[in-house]
Every structure is written in C-alpha cells, then in structure tokens.
C-alpha cells in the first residue's frame, strides 16, 4: 500500500477555511485512503470538516498532507491541486 506525503504552502486566499475547507473534506472523502493533515504539531483527520477548521491554516501557512491507502497518489494529487489554486 502506498503512503504519500507532501508539504504544501497554502496559496488559497481564504486559507484552508470556508469553501476551500469544505471542498477539501469533500474531495478527501472520495478516497479510500486514510488522509491526515498536519500543521505545526497538530495532526487532524483530513476527512473531517471540524478537524480541518481547527487547524486554522491561513494563506501562506505550510501544511503536510499525507495519504495512506491504495488510492493515495490520486488523493494527494487532487488535494494539492485544490490547495494551489490561487483564487
């Protein structure tokens, strides 16, 4: 089973809040892999809106997303695309 990690700088204007957070959770939930998001010392479930919101990742903060499972590569690719969107 692949396990993929990626460190990303959040470019989204709203950070990982509001609509992007909801979208992130919706995308994460499409995959079988276990998805976690880490910021500083906090690690949360990437499939939980409350978890993501609690991270409080603003624009410019650095987070690490990790996917563990058979669709891990695909999950990371799609999530990364969302976080790099500069809208």
């Amino acid at each position, binding site marked *: 089973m692949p396990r993929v990690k990626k460190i990303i700088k959040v470019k989204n204007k709203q950070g990982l809040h509001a609509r992007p957070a909801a979208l992130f959770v919706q995308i994460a939930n499409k995959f079988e892999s276990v998805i976690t998001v880490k910021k500083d010392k906090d690690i949360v479930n990437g499939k939980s*809106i409350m978890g993501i919101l*609690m991270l409080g990742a603003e624009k410019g903060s650095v987070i690490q997303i990790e996917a563990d499972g058979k669709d891990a590569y695909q999950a990371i690719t799609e999530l990364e695309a969302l976080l790099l969107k500069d809208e």
Partner: protein
Amino acid sequence: MNRQSLELKGIPAAEGIAIGPAYKLGKEIFDIPKKSISEEEIPLQIQIFEEALTQTRKEILGLQQIISREMGKETADIFNAHLLVLEDRMFIEEVIQRLKEEKLNVAYICSEVLKKYISIFSKIEDDYLKERIVDINDVGKRILRHLTGRRHPNWDDLKEKVIVVAHDLSPSDTATMHKKKVIGFVTDVGGKTSHTAIMAKSLEIPAVVGLEDATAKISDGDILIVDGKNGLVIVNPDEDTLRRYREEEKNILYFTSRFLATKDLPAQTLDGKMVKVSANIELPDEIDSAKEHGAEGIGLYRTEFFYMNRDDLPSEEEHYQAYRSVVEKMYPYEVIIRTLDLGGDKFVSQFKVPKDMVPFLGWRAIRFCLTRPDIFKIQLRAILKASIHGKIKLMYPMISGIDELRRANYILEECKEELKKEGIPFDENIEIGAMIELPSAALTSDLLAEEADFFSIGTNDLIQYSLAVDRTNEKVAYLYEPAHPAVLRMIKNIIETAHSKGIWVGMCGEMAGELKFVPLLLGLGLDEFSAPPMVIPQIKYAIRCLNLEEAKAFAKEALRFSSGKEVEDFCEDKIKQIMR
C-alpha cells in the same frame, strides 16, 4: 438599548395580560444529565446515536428541499455545511470512542463533544469559524433533540419571571412549568383548544398561539406584552403602549377581584334553580386554586399527567395516593376522575403507539384502554380504592357507542370482583359517567343513558368531530365554532334525552368556561358547569344574575339563528348586560 417595536397577531388562547422578558425554549438543549451505562448497553447506545444521525440527516435534507423550493438553491446551500458537520468523522468517532471509555449515556457525551468544538471554535478569531459555530449549534440541537426526545429547562433555576416563546409546547413541556416563573406563553403553532391553550387557561397564564413565526421574530430577552384576550404579542413596546397595558392589567385584576368576593355564594338563579359549578384540573396541586375560586367540586380530573415525563408506567399505588389526596382535599365536594385519555395531541413515550395519520380519529382514549386492560385496570383499581376516602365519580372519555361503555363497565366489574376477593374496601355504588364528545354518542345518548349514571359533554372534541375541524390546525381554526347550530342542536338533544331518562348532565369542555355561553347553556338545562378555576367566580356570578325561565326563552331564541356567528353575537350582548 432601543430595539425595534413589533406587533404580532395570533390566536387568543388564554385571557389576561403578561408583561416580561422573552424566554425561548429549546436553547437549553445542551444541558443533558449524565447517566452511567453498563458495558452491555454500549452497542445499543451506539445504535441510538446512529439512528439520531440518520433522523437528523433526513430532517435536514427535507428542510433543504423546502428552502430550495421557496427561497432558491443558493440559500439552501447553507444546509450543506450542516450536513458536513453531521457527517463529520472526527465528531462521530470521538463520540463513539468516549462512549466506550467513559460509559455514559450517549446524549450526554454527544453534548459534551459538541460543546468542546464550540468552545474551541469560539476562541479562534475568524468570521467564517464564527458562522460554523452557528452550524454546529443548529445541527447539534437537532441531534440532541432526536437523542433525548424533548427537553425542558429547570424552571426553578430561573431568576426572573419569563414569557415562554416556543414553536410548540408539548404536554410534557407545559406540565413542568411553574406559574411562579412562567407568566405567559407564545407559540408558532396551535389553535384555540390545543393542549397549550387548555394548559394556559388552567394555569391562568395569558397565552397567544398560532403566531406562525414568533420564534423567528422574537429574540431572547426581548420585552413582550402578551395580550391573551386579543391574541396580540407586542415585542419591545414603546413607553406609551407599556403604560396602557399596565393600566389594563390593573383593571383586569380589579375585575377578577370583584367576582372573587362573592365566589363562595351558591350558583343559584334568581328563581331558585341550583346549578353546580366545578373545576377542571390536571395536577393535584390545582385543587388549591379550585377551592380558592369557589369550585363546588372537580368536574374533570385529567389523569394523563401521571404518564408524562417518565420512562415507566405509574403503579397502582401512585395512582391511588394521588386520587386519595385529591378527594380528601376536596371533601365534602365530589371529584369526577376521567380515565386515561391519551392520543390525539397527548402522546406518551412509554407506549409504542404508531403515529396515526389522523391522530384524533385513531387509537386513543377508551379505545386504547379497552385493548390494554392491563394498563386500564391499574387505574380503575386505584380509583375504586380511593373511593372510600371521599366522593368519587368516574367517567370514560371518547365513548362512541354502547358497546364501548359496556366493555369498559365490564372491566370495571372485574376490578370490583378482584378487590372484593382481596378484601379491599371501595364504594360499591360509584357513579359511572360517559363523556359525550362524539357525534355518534350524542345521537345515541338515549341508549347510553340506560347504562350511565351521568353524562359529561366534552365540547372540544364534540365540536371538532361534528364540524370536521382539526383543532390543532391554525389554518382551519376559524371554522371551530362552539355556537354552530349543529353543535347547539346536539347539546340540546343530549340534555333533553338525559333528563327524560333521569340522569344529570355536566359539561367539561372549553365552552362551559366561556362566560358568554352561560345563559344559553343554563337555558338548555345544563346541570353542571366545569371550567378552569379562574373563571368560576364569574360563572357563578352570572348564574346568580339570571332567571331560569328567562334563560330558557333566551336559549330557544338563540337556536333560531342560522349561523354560529349570529348566536355568538347574541350571547355576547346578553352577557354584557348581565356583567355590567
């Protein structure tokens, strides 16, 4: 702080004026008592939790559909955020994990987890997160409501007197309310004779119901004026309005105190006819109020209260102790106990009663009791046992015809036999009454009179069944007319038939407590008026001012009108002359 003043119009449910701060019911839902559970109960608690989530999801999807149709898809998208919270894995997993570790009731754990999230989010300075708190709050309340049924606050903890504002009040809500703390009711739904209205009258709390969106327009702590007579609620009134209502409040007090002075005089007409005026009560405590208002008996003792706010069934001993205390306190006057009248708008959690499509026509009252003699007998035995401590009569609700009356009496005879065998004393000649509240009973009152010792007319149901008006539906509430010629003809028929068979007739419905109908009902020959304690002094006063022969002529004339409205106007004119 000067908040905007607003006037809302609803249906008048209980007269009087209340002025005080709004207290919205439902917000205290996060305070859930902690209960320990055993290891074996954990799977069941998880199942309950999952069921509550499913129910909440259904509820939100349903709401989303309605909002989408009425206000557009954009607005309905708010609920997507609610669904995300509801389906949140972290939240669900945390509840289940803590449930397993702490072994506490799932509702409590769920509320704790929700509170934790709310407190974390409220510490973060972010507008978006502030909105999410609202979402979590909203979803959380829905889940907890499904987990707990309904919850009510502890009224004793309230520091000031409040006016309760709620979407709807269930019998279990009103049953826990103290007059000392709750001075008014305001609800979105309900009609003139909904349970809320009846309780409000019985508790002497001014109430306005059927306001449709009061809960949306009123905020906690708003100053409200409840004008129960005109069905008005004034939100944050200006100084002038406030002064006017305070004045009016004083007048009402003066008016009621005027009749209170003569409350103990008998209800005897000018030409010597004695009429009985008794009280309707629900809680044993209300006996004091009944006596203070000059009641000459209890004409309707509702017994549903025992079954509310609990998970188990009341024991024979509990019934007995309550009945005994009521009849002893009321002695030498008599107490008419109505057997269990569940169903319709009165539901109780212990019985897994399937929801009827038309609850008022469903499995309720005597129908329920006759199919569950095990439950019925507990009550009947307790009533019989209490009968040696004072004067008790008993009556069955919702009798549709002679068969039901016979079957109920048969079960009663069985109870008597049992008690005899056990050597327990009781009043062998206890009088049995049939409530006449179905058109079928009204039309066959000659047959029923053969096997009953008295009748009590339940006008609320009689009117709603005769006119096919769901009395809890505010949209058709205007059709609910006590003075409709059809209703009056039925009442006339019931009383005449009963008298020809030598039995007496009382009335315990709302109509008996409406002052304006006193001359009419007296003229139709009614022997007993049973009404909420508050109005008893006025009814007695009105009867003392009337002449039976004149009342008879008045009733005859009233029956000639072709519409209920005309009769009501006619009655109102008459009572104004008397009570001047």
